[in-house]
């Protein structure tokens, strides 16, 4: 009897785990406005409508499930225009992340095309850049912590820690909205990652005369926050949709209905 109970509970745990793997939980991020580093005119705030966001980035285990159902996205079958050669290069095989990766570590080395497809298969989508930045400016207690020095220092210090991509999700702080790992784990794809033009020559982007997407406005601010944000924008600026990198993962979002 006892044995049976154990089996039963193990079984139900298994079900729960796989369900969780299928459909990760989301939280609601309320409507608001913020002034982004780039992409706005005259420093005017951008409105972000209410939306839902995954609590955690997508994990290796979740992505493995996805591949088993959509084998055309496996390493062997993916078309070159949709992903680099480094696509899932740290995985043991086409359908297994293997022993060297944690099941609950964020999946990385995934291209924008595949990340987008993954979210669509869940009935979701990638967050927009504004949605992502808006949700990410919160710390534990407030919706906008960008002026807090400790918040900026936390983000900057991540740039100096190596191999954080191997860590499990959910170990950094839970922010005001209830999401984890916006900072301190991996970079994340956004649906419109390349909508902000950054020439790659940062000094040129500062040039007010050239009016390059209001980069000048943010550079004139002395606030340290810019350094953390600058790096995210510079990073996104270096990407193409088929690129995959070891420190870049993703999570999904959804309109609130």
């Amino acid at each position: 009897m006892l044995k049976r109970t154990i089996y039963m509970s193990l079984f139900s745990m298994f079900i729960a785990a796989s369900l969780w793997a299928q459909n990760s939980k989301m939280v609601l991020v309320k409507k608001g406005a913020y002034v982004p580093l780039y992409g706005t005119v005259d420093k005017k705030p951008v409105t972000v409508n209410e939306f839902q966001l995954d609590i955690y980035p997508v994990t290796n285990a979740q992505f493995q499930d996805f591949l088993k159902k959509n084998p055309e996205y496996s390493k062997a079958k993916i078309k070159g225009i949709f992903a680099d050669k480094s696509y899932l290069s740290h995985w043991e095989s086409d359908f297994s992340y293997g022993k060297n990766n944690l099941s609950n570590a964020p999946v990385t080395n995934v291209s924008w095309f595949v990340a987008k497809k993954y979210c669509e298969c869940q009935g979701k989508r990638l967050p927009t850049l504004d949605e992502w930045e808006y949700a990410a400016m919160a710390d534990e207690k407030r919706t906008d912590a960008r002026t807090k020095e400790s918040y900026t220092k936390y983000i900057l210090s991540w740039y100096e820690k190596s191999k954080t991509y191997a860590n499990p999700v959910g170990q950094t702080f839970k922010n005001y909205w209830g999401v984890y790992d916006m900072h301190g784990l991996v970079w994340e794809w956004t649906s419109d990652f390349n909508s902000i033009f950054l020439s790659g020559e940062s000094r040129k982007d500062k040039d007010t005369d050239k009016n390059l997407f209001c980069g000048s406005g943010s550079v004139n601010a002395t606030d340290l926050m810019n350094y953390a944000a600058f790096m995210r924008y510079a990073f996104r600026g270096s990407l193409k949709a088929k690129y995959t990198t070891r420190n870049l993962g993703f999570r999904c979002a959804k309109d609130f209905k």
Partner: protein
Amino acid sequence: MITNLTKRTKTGVAAICCTLISVGLTAFGINFTKNDADHYKKVPVEGEMIAELTAPPFVPKPVGNRPAKKLIVNMEIKEMEGEMADGVKYTYWTFGGSVPGSFIRTRVGDEVEFHLRNHPDNKLPHNIDLHAVTGPGGGATSSLVAPGHEKVFNFKVINQGLYVYHCATAPVGMHIANGMYGLILVEPEGGLPPVDKEYYVMQGDFYTKGANGESGLQPFDMNKAVKEQPDYVVFNGSTKSLVGDKAITAKVGETVRLFVGNGGPNLVSSFHVIGEIFDKVHVEGGEMINKNVQTTLIPAGGSAIVDFKVDVPGTLILVDHSIFRTFNKGSLGMLKVEGPGDKTIYSGTTQEGIYLPEGGTIQNMPKVKTTEKPKVSLTVPQQIAAGKEIYGKTCFACHQSEGQGIPTVFPPLAKSDFLNANHTRAINTVLSGLSGEVTVNGNKYNNIMTSQNLTDEEIANVLTYVYNSWGNNKTVVKPEMVKAQREQNVH
């Protein structure tokens, strides 16, 4: 008078003639130099080769007489942990795995095919701006590369000189502050005049969360960087890169060439080599040569080529002569010169004696001291207080505020096994100085401490202060003990 005038006129005419000729020559010269770049941009290349890249302090082989070629440069960017000073770790961002980055050696007219690779484990995008490039961003506009990717761009080097390269990705200051700079040399046709030894030295300033010497992995401090208040100013990325067994070397009679750069990001370097005069300096890394220079200014993002012949044996010290940076922040390197001495050029100490300013024969120093001395003997706390004063004036510069010393250069007094093992030796060290190799807390030091001109009482007080500070064994040194040693040394 008349003859004089005639003479003058003649000289005048001669002078005018000379001027005319030289104007003609200069005109020709200017014409040629002015169009150097124009000339070299048309020079065809013959063949292809992969560039030899070297980590500091070494440089690749000279170009010699080779023709202009297509030169392939494979540069990998790595973000990696390294050691800034003893026990102080730092996450460097590097071109080629070293700070400064790999040295690139080209000749004027070369067509460089530059492959910039960003290691997959890196977190950040990077690019490269080479000051040797004629074109937008010095290459930066064409080279922004994501982790795990590669960018290729081409340029022709048409101006000779020693140029800085660096990363220019936003935020540019932080990328440079983390070590993303190096040197690219464009040699003239036929190469620079040959020398016996060539080395690569580059200064940089670093900004850490903890103060200088604070151990552990130190994150970059944005605030200090913006305020331009570095904790470390070093050559080749670390306080230890050019000292001890990593010192660069030469033999007496050899000519030495240093390719010196300054990555900044903030400070300008007053580059000086203690005990040497630069025979030739390519000012700011360009074509102009200045001779017999003591200290040359190297701007952030600039360079200089210095040539000198080493005539006598000894250790030459490379410093930024903004000297607090050397004593307190680490900008110190060593060039060890071996070989026979030359007493004409440098004699060494030939005489040692007591100097008495006036009436030396009448006054008797020991007597004066005894009469000046207060007879009251101090309590231990009083001795410590008095000793602290003396320490601040006399010992602090080398042994530092907390007795921590300067790694590899000046031994620590804090928790010092050398000190605690033998107080008589300590007294004698202050009395008579100490030179040669000593081992303190497991580390070897080879330097000179001069004898200190202090009274018995002052020595007793300062040693008592040192012994009662920073985890030492609380020995109390009395003036009589010092006096006894002083007398013993005389006999």
